[in-house]
């Protein structure tokens, strides 16, 4: 789960990271009164869960409350990469001298949290990594001993940060690590961390991704989920415990198991088709979950054919077949469908489907070819 910038910065601030004064507005007049309260120049920033807000015109400076209001009115309602702006953050404008990139994430191969920092802040870190890898500093953090002062010093001195800022930098790195631990983050990022004209450090932008698997112990964070940022289908899928990701193709797929779901998409593509989605119905294929999944797939108007690929291991093929037939009765659709069943009681299942006049297949290749031909 990704949090908005204002939520991320607020959580960082709880752990001692300095952030600009600011508040969230949902209307232009609110933006005006926040700007008046703050005094001086402000920056109006769209709050959407995607990158590239600046380039899309979603981040702008305002010199006074009047301008803050008109800019907020421009930005609110803006479409940024498919996300509608519903909130803006109005922050005190920082006096920026230098920009630093600072993040904590998980290094899978070392199996440890890792701090990444670069003096080339404000830039896309992937680009820095590709063009000037020597400018990126990486420090692994053992949770047993935490992030130590010498590690922050290694990074600060490596980036040529003035020595009188090293102590403050360490307060920020440990604050960021504490936040990372406290909220079960998979990524906590400050980009940029600004060296101000007043010789201080300030986290001007923040990004925080929370491990969905840890939300059970963070009910307060689960409530921060912005349901406006989800599509109807994503919301429904989440409610039914389905893994669903919409894609651009026209062949809908319903599969049990994430690896098999990816492989099914790959095979569709291999035979000249384009998958419309990734959908894993999980361990048990019940009538209820099959019905919900089918509804979600068919809600996508691009879908011209549906491929079911179910490996009956623990789940029995005849049960799945009955589930599919029942789901179709409830939903009703003219879209052609191909069902492939494998494993336990597959033959009985295929018979049930054949009786219901559905196209069936035994191998994945055959199923994919049929679906591609029908789409």
């Amino acid at each position: 789960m990704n949090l908005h910038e204002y939520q991320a910065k607020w959580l960082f601030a709880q752990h001692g990271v300095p952030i600009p004064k600011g508040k969230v507005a949902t209307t232009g007049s609110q933006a005006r009164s926040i700007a008046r309260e703050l005094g001086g120049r402000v920056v109006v920033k769209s709050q959407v869960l995607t990158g590239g807000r600046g380039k899309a015109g979603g981040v702008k400076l305002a010199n006074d409350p009047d301008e803050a209001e008109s800019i907020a009115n421009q930005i609110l309602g803006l479409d940024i990469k498919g996300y509608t702006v519903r909130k803006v953050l109005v922050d005190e404008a920082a006096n920026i001298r230098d920009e630093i990139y600072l993040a904590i994430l998980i290094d899978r191969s070392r199996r440890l949290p890792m701090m990444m920092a670069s003096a080339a802040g404000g830039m896309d870190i992937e680009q820095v990594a590709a063009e000037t890898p020597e400018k990126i500093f990486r420090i692994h953090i053992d949770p047993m001993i935490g992030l130590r002062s010498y590690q922050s010093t290694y990074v600060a001195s490596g980036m040529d940060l003035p020595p009188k800022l090293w102590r403050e930098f360490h307060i920020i790195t440990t604050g960021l690590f504490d936040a990372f631990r406290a909220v079960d983050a998979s990524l906590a990022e400050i980009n940029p961390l600004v060296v101000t004209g007043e010789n201080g450090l300030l986290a001007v932008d923040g990004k925080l991704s929370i491990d969905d698997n840890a939300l059970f112990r963070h009910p307060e964070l689960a409530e921060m989920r912005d349901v406006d940022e989800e599509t109807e289908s994503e919301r429904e899928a989440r409610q039914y415990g389905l893994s669903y990701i919409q894609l651009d193709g026209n062949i809908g797929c319903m599969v049990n198991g994430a690896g098999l779901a990816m492989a099914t998409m790959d095979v569709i593509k291999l035979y000249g088709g384009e998958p419309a989605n990734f959908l894993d119905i999980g361990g048990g294929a019940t009538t209820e979950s099959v019905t919900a999944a089918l509804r979600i797939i068919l809600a996508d108007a691009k879908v011209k054919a549906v491929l079911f690929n179910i490996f009956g291991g623990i789940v029995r093929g005849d049960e799945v077949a009955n589930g599919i037939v029942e789901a179709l009765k409830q939903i009703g659709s003219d879209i052609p469908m191909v069902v492939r069943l494998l494993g336990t009681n597959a033959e009985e299942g295929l018979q049930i489907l054949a009786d219901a006049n559905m196209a069936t297949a035994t191998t994945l290749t055959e199923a994919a070819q049929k679906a591609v031909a029908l789409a």
Partner: protein
Amino acid sequence: MSILIDQNTRLLVHGITGRQGMFHTEKMLAYGTNVVGGITPGKGGQWVHGVPVFNTAQKAMEATGANCSMISVPARFAADSMYEAADAGIPLIICLTEGIPVQDMIEVRAYLDRLGVRLVGPNCPGLITPGKPGRAGMSGTKVGITPGSIVMPGRAGIVSRSGTLTYEVIYALTSRGIGQSTCIGIGGDPIIGSNFIDVLRMFEEDPETDRVVIIGEIGGNDEQLAAAYISKSMTKPVAAFIAGRTAPPGRRMGHAGAIVEGASGTAEAKIEALEAVGVKVADHPEQIVELIS
């Protein structure tokens, strides 16, 4: 023979009184696995399919001399169960549970490494060493949920990050008469116990495995590390399938670990690394059969 589990395995099931635990205990017993005990706090003294239930792993160890634990408890209790098994002296833990927080797994893995405990999983289907029906019932050993009906004894070792996709490949192999020595699911999470290299090394040393199938997917760089190991240390032929060629970047594809972040996580990068060291990579799962025959 086989790797990690065989007829000498004495298994404890953590979460044996749960719906899944009970169901799979019955299946494992029927397949020939020696399930010696189960653990559910507060339910010590009960029996599940003829298997005694204990309140703690410590008590279960004293009573049964177990040498393997299978964890089938809800995600929020899974880390605790793994620590408990390790502290009781269990040398091999198979964790099926999906949805364990990544930061928990960092600590669990570090602790288990310190005690020299081998972990398989989490978020995996476990292992199966295929057996045959005999006078005393099935002679196979399975720890986990892979259906016994799709495997057959033989000499191909299977290692995979996935569940049903592995069944798909096993099924295709079995249908064409290619049996398996051991099939092992290492799990789809970002932080796992045993990785491809650990398992490849065991298959390389196993006298009853003569070829190996790797089933990988997007995310991380475990497949690239496996490729380097294969080129340096494997004498047995290896074939592979990598799922997720059509996966969009930055989206988590069901498994917590299946997400393309940066160039090394893509299916293309993994396929390229494996092909560069002579591993044949299948275009679709059923093609594995042709590449490994």
